[in-house]
């Protein structure tokens, strides 16, 4: 496992391997995400209370889940960088933060569009909404820190420390609906408990969740490949790649 991790952490192996995976990932993402969205919009039955407005769930829940999952993954990358000094992990941190910020923004925006018809307001200073907003600000702070450093490797270390500090927001977001009396409903999906929604609504949700997760992996790999070439430009394999027109 560790041997595999170290092999994948080698920039050249990462670049070649990701190049092979990307086409498959792109096709799977398009099919699964597109299929899930179409299923949710066309074939899932309307909710007995919320009517068709509930269909926003198919974009809101996956983006909210991913905004947190990406941050948790960044926590793992931060440990890899600070403890095992894997440079690739530091580079991936910023890529993940860019995407995580997009997901947090989408979660807040789509949640707001769902909140207006259901709660009668675009925004409330509810614990779940506020803690998710803090997550968006955390992503912003991480990106600002990364861009403030001329020395990328030094910047990566600061970003890793900031990421670890911000990890405290994740349990707050998750448990906010249980700890405080909130307007936001409890979790729709849980790993251990039985799903609270009917299978006809659940399957498209799982599809969009998987599709958006694949999209995130795809985007991170694509961004990382570009950044990797710039950072490793002094290596002979990058020169060969550029001269052969393989970039």
């Amino acid at each position: 496992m560790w041997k595999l991790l170290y092999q994948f952490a080698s920039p050249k192996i990462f670049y070649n391997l990701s190049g092979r995976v990307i086409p498959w990932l792109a096709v799977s993402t398009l099919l699964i995400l597109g299929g899930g969205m179409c299923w949710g919009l066309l074939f899932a039955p309307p909710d007995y209370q919320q009517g068709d407005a509930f269909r926003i769930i198919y974009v809101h829940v996956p983006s909210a889940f991913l905004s947190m999952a990406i941050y948790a993954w960044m926590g793992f990358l931060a440990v890899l960088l600070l403890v095992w000094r894997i440079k690739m992990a530091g580079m991936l941190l910023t890529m993940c933060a860019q995407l995580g910020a997009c997901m947090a923004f989408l979660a807040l925006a789509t949640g707001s569009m769902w909140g207006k018809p259901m709660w009668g307001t675009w925004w409330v200073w509810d614990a779940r909404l506020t803690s998710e907003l803090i997550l968006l600000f955390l992503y912003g702070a991480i990106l600002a820190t990364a861009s403030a450093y001329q020395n990328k490797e030094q910047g990566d270390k600061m970003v890793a420390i900031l990421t670890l500090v911000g990890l405290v927001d994740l349990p707050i977001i998750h448990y906010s609906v249980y700890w405080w009396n909130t307007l936001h409903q409890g979790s729709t999906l849980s790993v251990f408990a039985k799903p609270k929604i009917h299978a006809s609504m659940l399957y498209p949700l799982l599809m969009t969740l998987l599709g958006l997760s694949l999209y995130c992996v795809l985007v991170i790999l694509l961004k990382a490949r570009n950044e990797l070439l710039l950072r490793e430009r002094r290596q002979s394999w990058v020169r060969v790649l550029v001269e052969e027109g393989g970039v």
Partner: protein
Amino acid sequence: MNQFWQWLAMGGYSIYIWPAYGLVCVVLVMNLLGIKWQGIRTRKKLQQWFKRP
């Protein structure tokens, strides 16, 4: 045809549902376009770097 318009109306919630899906699609596509532009910039930077004496 009537059924299509009915579906498009989304039970009266279309002004919330379609913008939500639209926004998600725009952000996802913009991300990919951003990567495409980043790729072009990277290629140019690397070519300039290797041309240096």
